[in-house]
């Protein structure tokens, strides 16, 4: 059931966050989630196997069943608070893998298809920096994903794919909705290599 605009694909390593982002997409659009485990509502979900070619196979499955996507949204995964003593420990590897690693794998798998569509876009949603102790992993993940987005925009500029990052507070994922809506709009075709910082409550200081 491919729409004229192609499906909106939401990919991530955390099923819950992917599901929350999917609910923010306007209902008129076809949304396909790409996740590593069975979600609660699997009707339009594609599972990523833990094999070397897992993401490539998932992208191929999406294109076969729903058509070439026009928008790829990368969902963030929660990052545990960890102190400096845990830096480079298992939490560090997990946080980077579930955020940056997933972003890289999904973008690599879907970019060739996106390049075949006019006005294709990649939106990397990540966390806004938080203050206080225990946020070194969060800062590293958020910074890495933001800069990955900017570099990817340069790599994909010639192919016509726009790439942008959206940062949201950990307790305000809903703020990503308007930004994703904007960045997947045809009116945002000249908007690339930027970081948007929307918020749900206007007037609040960041």
């Amino acid at each position: 059931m491919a729409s004229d605009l192609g499906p909106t694909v939401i990919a991530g390593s955390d099923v819950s966050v992917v599901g929350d982002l999917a609910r923010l997409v306007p209902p008129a659009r076809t949304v396909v989630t790409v996740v590593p485990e069975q979600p609660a509502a699997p009707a339009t979900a594609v599972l990523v196997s833990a094999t070397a070619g897992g993401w490539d196979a998932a992208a191929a499955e999406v294109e076969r069943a729903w058509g070439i996507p026009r928008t790829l949204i990368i969902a963030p995964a929660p990052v545990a608070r960890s102190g400096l003593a845990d830096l480079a420990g298992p939490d560090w590897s997990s946080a980077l893998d579930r955020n940056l690693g997933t972003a890289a794998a999904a973008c690599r798998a879907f970019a060739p298809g996106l390049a075949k569509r006019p006005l294709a876009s990649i939106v990397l949603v990540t966390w806004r920096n938080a203050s206080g102790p225990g946020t070194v992993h969060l800062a590293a993940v958020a910074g890495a994903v933001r800069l990955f987005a900017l570099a990817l925009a340069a790599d994909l500029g010639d192919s016509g794919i726009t790439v942008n990052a959206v940062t949201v507070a950990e307790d305000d994922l809903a703020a990503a909705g308007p930004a994703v809506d904007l960045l997947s709009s045809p009116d945002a075709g000249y908007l690339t290599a930027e970081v948007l910082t929307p918020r749900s409550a206007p007037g609040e200081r960041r």
Partner: protein
Amino acid sequence: MNGLDGRVALVTGAGQGIGAAIARRLAAAGALVAVNSLHADKARRTAEQVTAAGGKAVAVPGDVANPADVESFITETESALGPVEVLVNNAAILSMAPFVEFDRNEFDRIINVNLTGPMLCTRAVLPAMRSSRWGRIITVASIWGIIGARGAAPYSASKGGLIGFTRALADEVAGDGVFVTAIAPGVVDTPQLAADAAFAGVSVTEIKQRYADDTLVNRIATADEIAGLIVWLAANHTGAFSGETVAVTGGRSE
């Protein structure tokens, strides 16, 4: 989704370029548009284009840097269409020279038009927006207001000032249902490129190519693209971006 049907919009500097494109786009989205320009003939021409395309528009010429003019053209807008609900601060001028050679009067003129003008217009429309608890103010800044540009110190300063103004005002009025956003375009294909070309000592065609080469998408923006984004922000989720400056550069080269 269209939140602009029947809304009254005022676009400053709409006699040509981005402003004219914004006026056309707003009207296409259902807004009733007041077209401001310093030049009455240009304001009339844009208003006629809007009307010819089936929209509703009136020409309200005047100088945004002149408080009496601002009061006058906003009164004209209210009489013809109703209170302003969407204000697009677009009017701006650009001239280029090395900073030490900039004539003081020219420096002041740029600041007055580009920075003081939007403040005057905003102050004039805010009371009605606050009392109706609905308003959208979108200001056209510039990427040069973020990164600065050689030969454009006063222009860069004026646009940087708009970005700070946007942030501060957004916090003040968000509780009244008024959302304030800026966009910072990169290089746009408008008549203002002639000033850049003259400063660089090259043709307009050459300057366009140079700027295009500096983007990730290998082209400069069209006025219609920038207008489309502004109208999207006015019509949809401006609240999420209130206080923000959205840079639209095709991938900036810094």
